[in-house]
């Protein structure tokens, strides 16, 4: 239990009354069209109620009229900052239904692409979080590196944001020659830059003052509200689908050496000399969620390196995509994968035709956001963007 005695208990105050303030939907720090109604008493926010649905396109209804491969572009638009991981989730769900495993080379290709997508998504998360706390420069440094990843993706599949590259059965095309060397060069270049990000934000005294001990989420609340990904691991829950997930998903990662980034009895896995955890930081606060994302970034660099040399050593086909109008077997399947923002679940019900009967996408940011009202109770107005920013939500994924 995080016993933080809150310095802000107010015994004596000038008589002011409640004010309802609208933060959003057009607000610079709500990561897209999210509307938070703040009930404030002076600077102290007594309660926030999120209103979502501004970006709702009812992708699930469209899923009932398209074959699985035709629905891949819709999964791109859910978490548009990590589109490849969404494609992967949907592709694996359909493959689980078809009981079809992609060839070994296809699996390693998928690990390379999804981990690169995780790096790109965490870079955006870090930059946007710097913006929420008022410093502009980290955002530009993050996007400078992300541009290089987008160039790599553009070479691989031609698009920069919504790729539809990983599809049911494997990928739409193999990696172009010389791509692996460029990817390796990029990784060697990115490694030292991560330490710059730490110096710029993680160990910055004002950043620590703004995030340590703010929005503390104990483990029980994290599990009870169904949060996942860095938000869950930031509260110390040792759970990562790449290790504890279902067979079809963890098959991709078997044989890879990696440790789940979570604070176990006081310290994080030490495979990179990170800055120490500051004294004010309580497990489960905004600082830890940010710190887990930064460590995962370095972990993904290592994973991509392992995947590259496994991919180059394995031969055979990279996994041709499934035929378009292939009949789906009867039955229903649910599979969750570890997307950068949390566990992205896809649920497909089919009654034997080529078009599924019902499609459902369980979004991680949807559950992560449902914790926000609980965390923002009686914080200051300046803390609301800090807490909502630390949950790293994307509205496309929440509203589907």
């Amino acid at each position, binding site marked *: 239990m995080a016993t933080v005695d809150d310095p802000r208990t107010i015994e004596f105050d000038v008589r002011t009354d409640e004010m309802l303030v609208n933060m959003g939907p057009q607000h610079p720090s709500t990561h897209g069209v999210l509307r938070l109604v703040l009930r404030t008493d002076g600077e102290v926010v007594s309660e926030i109620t999120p209103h979502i649905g501004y970006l709702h396109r009812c992708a699930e209804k469209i899923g009932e009229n398209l074959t699985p491969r035709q629905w891949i572009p819709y999964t791109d638009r859910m978490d548009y900052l990590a589109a490849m991981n969404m494609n992967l989730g949907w592709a694996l769900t359909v493959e689980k239904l078809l009981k079809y495993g992609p060839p070994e080379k296809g699996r390693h290709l998928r690990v390379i692409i999804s981990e690169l997508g995780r790096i790109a998504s965490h870079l955006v998360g870090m930059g946007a979080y710097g913006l929420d706390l008022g410093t*502009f420069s980290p955002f530009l440094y993050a996007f400078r590196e992300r541009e290089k990843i987008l160039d790599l993706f553009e070479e691989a599949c031609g698009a920069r944001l919504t790729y539809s590259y990983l599809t049911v059965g494997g990928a739409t095309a193999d990696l172009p020659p010389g791509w692996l060397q460029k990817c390796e060069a990029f990784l060697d270049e990115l490694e030292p830059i991560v330490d710059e990000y730490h110096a710029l934000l993680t160990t910055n005294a004002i950043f620590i003052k*703004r995030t340590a001990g703010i929005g503390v989420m104990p483990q029980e609340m994290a599990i009870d509200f169904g949060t996942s990904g860095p938000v869950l691991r930031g509260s110390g829950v040792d759970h990562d689908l790449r290790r504890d997930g279902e067979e079809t998903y963890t098959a991709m990662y078997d044989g890879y050496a990696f440790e789940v980034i979570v604070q176990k009895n006081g310290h994080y896995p030490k495979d990179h000399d990170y800055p120490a955890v500051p004294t004010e930081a309580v497990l489960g606060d905004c600082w830890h969620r940010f710190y887990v994302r930064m460590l995962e970034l370095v972990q993904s660099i290592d994973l991509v390196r392992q995947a590259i040399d496994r991919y180059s050593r394995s031969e055979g086909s990279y996994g041709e995509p499934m035929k378009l109008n292939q009949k789906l077997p009867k039955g229903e399947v649910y599979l969750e994968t570890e997307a950068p923002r949390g566990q992205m679940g896809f649920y497909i019900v089919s009654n034997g035709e080529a078009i599924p009967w019902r499609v459902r996408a369980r979004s991680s940011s949807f559950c992560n956001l449902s914790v926000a009202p609980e965390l923002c109770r009686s914080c200051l107005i300046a803390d609301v963007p800090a807490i909502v920013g630390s949950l790293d939500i994307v509205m496309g994924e929440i509203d589907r």
Partner: protein
Amino acid sequence: MGAFFDQYLPTWLAYTLAGLIHVGLIINLVAVGALIFIWLERKISGRIQDRLGPTRVGGKFGWLQTLADGMKLLTKEDLMPEGADGFLFRIAPYVSFGASITAFIAIPFAGGDYPWIAQRVNTGVFFVIAVLGLEVFGVILAGYSSASKWSLFGAMREAAQVVSYEVPLGMCAVVPVLLAGSMDLVVIGDQQAGWFTNWFIFNDPATFITFWVYFTCATASVNRAPFDLAEAESELVAGFHTEYSGLRWSFFFMAEYGSMFSVSILASILFLGGWHGPIPIASLLHVDGTYFGNLLGCLNVLFKGTLGVAIMMWVRWTLPRLRIDQVMATCLKYCTPIAAVMFLGAALWQYALPGRNFFGLSRAPAAVYNVSEGWSAGANAAIEKSAPVETVNAESPTPVAVVLTQSNRGG
């Protein structure tokens, strides 16, 4: 200036002409200053963020970028929100801009016998600090009258912050006044003549720390860098000037850069020897009192002011923003106590080692001490009249302490 014109023109025309020239110079200084600083901010932020900043507008380094911005702002429509209080909404930017400009009346740009100053106010430091406190007035009116909750928040935050940071700012500004023995900025600047060792910042460790506390409080009182709560775009959309657009908005912008410039010039005069360069070129070339000497001095002051502004910009583009209660805490728990202790330290140091400079290592130049202060004649007269005592010489502690001790004994 007025007397000079008086020889050729009727007196009333002479003095109005002199006044107009002064006002014209000051307005140009701030306007052109703002022009340069906005361009400088874009270039510095560009460099810090690994990009180029403006490069194409009007020539090689995009130096006309701000003019282009100005043109855009001029042509933009001046909106006013529907529920706004018209009169206050329109007048707020001009109150803020006016306050930030009037601070320049009492700021000298070159000292010596013919100081380049619009109006030599005897209590220069006190006047500048008082007027800087007025700038927050325009902000409050803007926040209140634009009828939107967000700007009200921004205005309240700014009011709380600036009003509370005036206290440590005033205390830090008092330390150089104590060293120089007068509040007149020209006198304070003159006391720091000679090598950089005579600058007040190096006078004693207490003043050294006071400079840094002063700079923090100055950054906070002009609402910049980690303390820019009022226009915190990530929380309050754009704070108090959310509803402003076009020319009115640019007045707020100019007011901010104007007061940033005036606060940095004040810092340079109080602590960094104002118009005296690190090496006393003017006195080495024996052009001390002449026009050329003053010109060198003026360049010195402008350079140091721009340096201060550049540092504020550099800090802004690296550090995240503080929360409102942390800003208040830094003011009450850190800046004010440190300023008080440093004030005590400076006073005791001055009492213990009266004639020393540069952390007590070098002797203060004798010339520094015959303070051309009218009152000391009166004080000396008082001393002779009340009780015959040895004359005030360079060795004895500063006149303040002398009279104090004398009058106690005498009274």
